[in-house]
């Protein structure tokens, strides 16, 4: 075969001109820019002599003033965040004032609108959210200390059920598209590059899907079939290989298998464990009857945490979060905490209805996502919550 030309000049020219020459700006881009500009008011122009002086002020004493003002603005004027419904406690917002000052300049960025379908954190510093509103699958992110979300990617097609997971730098997104067709994307570098992950052909007719990584790469895929049985696939260099599995029944909703072969799975509301990479499973006694919904408040107040497997089940379902040696679980309308002395009920969750995920970034700062798409944030370990306005 003839070796192609590798002249960087030709490569770059053909790459850019081939991709971008026919590209046109979205029709609403001009309107949005003009609308913002008309409402922005007069523009301040620095003089040549004033510039270094202003920079010096900004760099030293100015930063202190901006910091104080930003802190005041954040604590008194929530902006994108406001107190939730009447029964929610008063907002106590402690996120980075510097972050707020920086983002305050962004007047023309798109807003974090629409209900959130999935929520995750990749490292202790970055949060991720997926929205499926308005017929698109949008991926949003923000550093944990920042205040505003930023849209980073729109995946093709539409989707309803969404599962977003991160393990270190590896992340994956599973989406149930129109016609019951599951699709997946994965990233190996903390969300910088997302590539489509091919799934077995049976994924087109599966009722449920769950992914598990091993050593930072998606390695196991569980697909629930319409007849209620579960098929487990292991990723190899040749693609997905189906594994014969024993001892598990019911629709599989979550799976986690480690490189050692030890793993856990949730199927039909029960917790199963494996020691051999997912071939044989055994159900753990007393692990059933864990309903992680936010029930109505009076009956929920009398519900104790049921058994020793609660933490494992909650973590598998995304309803548990362990940071700094403190395990939290969203259970029956309350936030529970497990430390050395056992379970302790911290307080009521900020809204009723099923919880989709609970994520704590630090011991005090955490987020709860309800299936309705609402996100609440806490900065005092769950004692009080503030709602993100998504509408």
């Amino acid at each position, binding site marked *: 075969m003839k070796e*192609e030309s*590798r002249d*960087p*000049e030709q*490569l*770059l*020219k053909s*790459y*850019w*001109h*081939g*991709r*971008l*020459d026919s*590209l*046109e*700006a*979205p029709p609403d*881009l*001009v309107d*949005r*820019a*003009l609308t*913002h*500009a*008309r409402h*922005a008011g*007069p*523009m301040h122009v620095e003089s040549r002599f004033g510039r270094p002086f202003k920079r010096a002020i900004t760099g030293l004493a100015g930063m202190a003033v901006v910091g104080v003002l930003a802190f005041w603005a954040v604590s008194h004027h929530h902006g994108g965040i406001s107190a939730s419904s009447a029964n929610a406690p008063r907002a106590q917002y402690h996120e980075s004032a510097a972050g707020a000052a*920086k*983002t305050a300049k*962004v*007047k*023309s*960025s*798109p807003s974090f609108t629409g209900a959130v379908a999935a929520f995750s954190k990749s490292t202790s510093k*970055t949060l991720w959210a997926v929205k499926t509103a308005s017929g698109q699958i949008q991926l949003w*992110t923000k*550093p944990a200390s920042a205040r505003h979300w*930023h*849209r*980073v*990617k*729109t*995946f*093709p097609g539409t989707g309803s059920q969404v599962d977003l997971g991160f393990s270190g730098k590896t992340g994956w997104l599973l989406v149930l598209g129109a016609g019951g067709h599951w699709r997946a994307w994965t990233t190996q570098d*903390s*969300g*910088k*590059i*997302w*590539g*489509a992950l091919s799934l077995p052909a049976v994924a087109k007719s599966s009722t449920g899907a769950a992914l598990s990584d091993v050593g930072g790469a998606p390695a196991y895929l569980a697909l629930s079939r319409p007849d209620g049985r579960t098929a487990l696939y292991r990723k190899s260099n040749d693609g997905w290989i189906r594994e014969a599995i024993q001892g598990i029944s019911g629709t599989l909703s979550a799976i986690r298998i480690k490189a050692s072969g030890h793993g856990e799975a949730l199927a039909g509301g029960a917790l199963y464990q494996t020691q051999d990479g997912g071939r044989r499973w055994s159900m753990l006694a007393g692990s059933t009857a864990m309903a992680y919904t936010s029930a109505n408040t009076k009956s929920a107040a009398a519900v104790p945490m049921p058994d020793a497997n609660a933490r494992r089940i909650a973590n598998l379902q995304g309803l548990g979060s362990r940071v700094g040696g403190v395990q939290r679980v969203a259970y029956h309308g309350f936030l529970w905490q497990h430390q050395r002395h056992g379970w302790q009920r911290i307080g009521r969750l900020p809204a009723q209805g099923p919880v989709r995920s609970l994520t704590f970034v630090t011991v005090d700062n955490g987020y709860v996502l309800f299936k309705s798409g609402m996100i609440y944030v806490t900065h005092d370990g769950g004692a009080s919550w503030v709602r993100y306005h998504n509408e």
Partner: protein
Amino acid sequence: MADLANAAETWVEQYADRVFRLAHALVGERTRAEDAAQESLYNIARWCLNHPEFTPTDAWVYQVTRNAVRDQARRWPQATVPLDEGLASAAVDPGVERLDVARALTALSDHDREVLVFFYFLDLTTEEVAQVLKISPTAVRIRLSRARKRFKVVFERGTEEQNPERRRRR
């Protein structure tokens, strides 16, 4: 005032496609390019509204766009998504070089990438690039030469990793 608004609108409409393409070339991804282009067009419109006698030039518009892209990268450094869907789907075809080019571009620094974009995509002369980047033409030539070499190295490394057979043939 209405004349001023009309003039600003005319300028923004005239430059919208070019700004969007340049932002796309610099960030490599449509969503972020939209955000950066919107920020850039907002700045252009606002300046034109405040300065009736001002006539935007290409170099000035490119400079504003480049600043908007840089501001965006500074605000959201982790939110770089350099591959669009078309490229991701092209990954299944090992003969397609576009993905390798995209990967190599993401591995370059912002300085290297922008000088390549201005020179090879916008077809500016070194003097014009110097005007946009506010450096001397000599500095542009040096930066361009280094960027070209770095791109070549990264691109060839990437294609060899993707296609081990090519490496063996060599």
